[in-house]
């Protein structure tokens, strides 16, 4: 029982970073109804830029964090301009395929920056490890959870209570109606990319600082985790992304404990499979899609 609870706690803590990755996918999907496949690769390029500074100039971990964030945001803006702005909204497949190509391009750029297989990534603790009853809370994971919770809270406030957040939700619902209302839809979409890149950059940094290493597979890994968590929670739903991320983390933690490390990823794929069979819209997706369908019928 204690193991079960401990695993669940560990899963929630690591799952919080999956939640941030899923938020990145889900917000872009909400605004554009398209999937940005280059998302993981933009985070990777940002993290590689930070690591490059760390490797060559031994800069402070905060400089690495800042560089990771800034470069991820720049990469995100680059992807928006190249794959999403330039290609019309009704050509969803074309922009998805082009974002896949940009994924390759960004990864190649990162690998040219640092050609070795593995690099050390500076660790980052705010909280030290502590025990609460029989349970152990590891410092780096607690830090991750706190960072993720702060990000989700800030995002919630931004989306609900600011002019930009409302514009973003309006564009998600109907770009055409938003344009009639004088909302600069192109600018909102660019800002949405910058915003999710910032969220992704925080997630990437938190994950890498916990692992204390970075490899060229990070982009692929982040894409998988983010996409699976988004699909579990329901595409286009922000609470769904959080829920999906936490669920994925918990399932992986249990699989790793009870079945062994080699089943950790497999369990995630099995869970996704089961979800797609039993509840294809994801945990909260159906509700969203149902509400949207109603909205389209009535308005």
């Amino acid at each position, binding site marked *: 029982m204690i193991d079960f609870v401990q695993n669940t706690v560990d899963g929630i803590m690591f799952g919080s970073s999956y939640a941030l990755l899923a938020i990145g996918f889900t917000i872009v999907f909400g605004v554009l109804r398209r999937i940005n496949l280059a998302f993981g690769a933009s985070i990777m390029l940002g993290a590689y830029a930070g690591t490059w500074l760390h490797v060559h100039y031994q800069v402070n971990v905060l400089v690495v964090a800042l560089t990771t964030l800034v470069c991820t945001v720049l990469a995100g803006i680059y992807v928006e301009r190249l794959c999403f702005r330039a290609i019309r909204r009704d050509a969803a497949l074309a922009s998805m395929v082009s974002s896949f190509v940009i994924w390759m391009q960004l990864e190649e750029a990162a690998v040219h920056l640092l050609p070795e297989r593995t690099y050390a990534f500076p660790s980052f603790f705010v909280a030290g490890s502590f025990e609460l009853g029989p349970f152990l809370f590891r410092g780096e994971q607690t830090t991750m959870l706190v960072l993720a919770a702060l990000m989700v809270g800030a995002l919630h406030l931004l989306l609900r*209570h600011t002019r930009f957040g*409302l514009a973003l939700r309006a564009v998600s619902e109907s770009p*055409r109606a*938003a344009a*009639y209302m*004088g*909302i600069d*839809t192109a600018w909102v979409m660019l800002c949405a990319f910058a915003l999710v890149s910032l969220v992704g950059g925080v997630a990437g940094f938190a994950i890498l600082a916990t692992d204390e290493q970075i490899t060229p597979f990070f982009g692929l890994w982040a894409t998988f985790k983010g996409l699976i968590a988004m699909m579990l929670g329901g595409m286009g739903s922000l609470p769904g992304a959080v829920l999906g991320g936490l669920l994925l983390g918990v399932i992986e933690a249990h699989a790793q404990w009870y079945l062994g490390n080699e089943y950790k990823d497999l369990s995630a794929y099995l869970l996704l499979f089961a979800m797609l069979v039993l509840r294809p819209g994801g945990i909260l997706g159906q509700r969203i899609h149902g509400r949207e369908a109603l909205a389209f019928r*009535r*308005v």
Partner: protein
Amino acid sequence: MLEVRGLRVSYGGLRAVDGVSLEVRAGEIVSIIGMNGAGKTSILNAVSGIRSPDEGEIRFEGESIGGLPAHAVVARGIVQVPEGRLLFGTLSVEENLLAGAHRRSPFVLRRRPRADLRRLFPALADKLHRPAASLSGGEAQMLALARGLESEPRLLLLDEPSLGLSPKLSEGVFTLIRRLRDRGLTLLLVEQNLRRTLALADRAYVLESGRIVSSGSAAALESDHRLLSDYLGTSAPAAFHSAK
């Protein structure tokens, strides 16, 4: 106030508006009438910047606004209430209004008491927190109007505001339009309800296949039975009268 000269708009090689010139003076209600597909909506969309024109000049208060993006046009004081309303269905009534006020709202949204709303749109005032998709047709049209007014436009473009509404609800919309004009708003109106439109408007333009075939004061057009029966088909009430 608004001056359009030689406007041409086309969709994929098909010309929807072909050399239209029209004028709206401050304080007027001007109407564009014509059959479905005559190019009425295309004119409004070109003025509001949703569609960039192929040719022609659009001037608002002396400034050329042709080809400006929609948000820049709204910033200059022109707002279009689109056909079919296009509300944000999953957002609340209040959020729809706040989205309408996007241009002049501060970074942190202020939800304020809405005395003005209660006066003009009493049906909406009690439903601020309901999703827009839950409104009835009449309420939805009221919200579309209220949302358009939130940006405090000087020229309001109305595209088929009575479409899909019962005669009683349409009556409410027309009464409202009159009240808005009395409060100093200038309106350019596209409507399919011919009799009502001519009763409401100061002047009107008759559009056929993207060209203006007649224009003048609403009263003069209303008495021109032949013109109306020719260009607007038998559905026009005037045509009905002349057949009798």
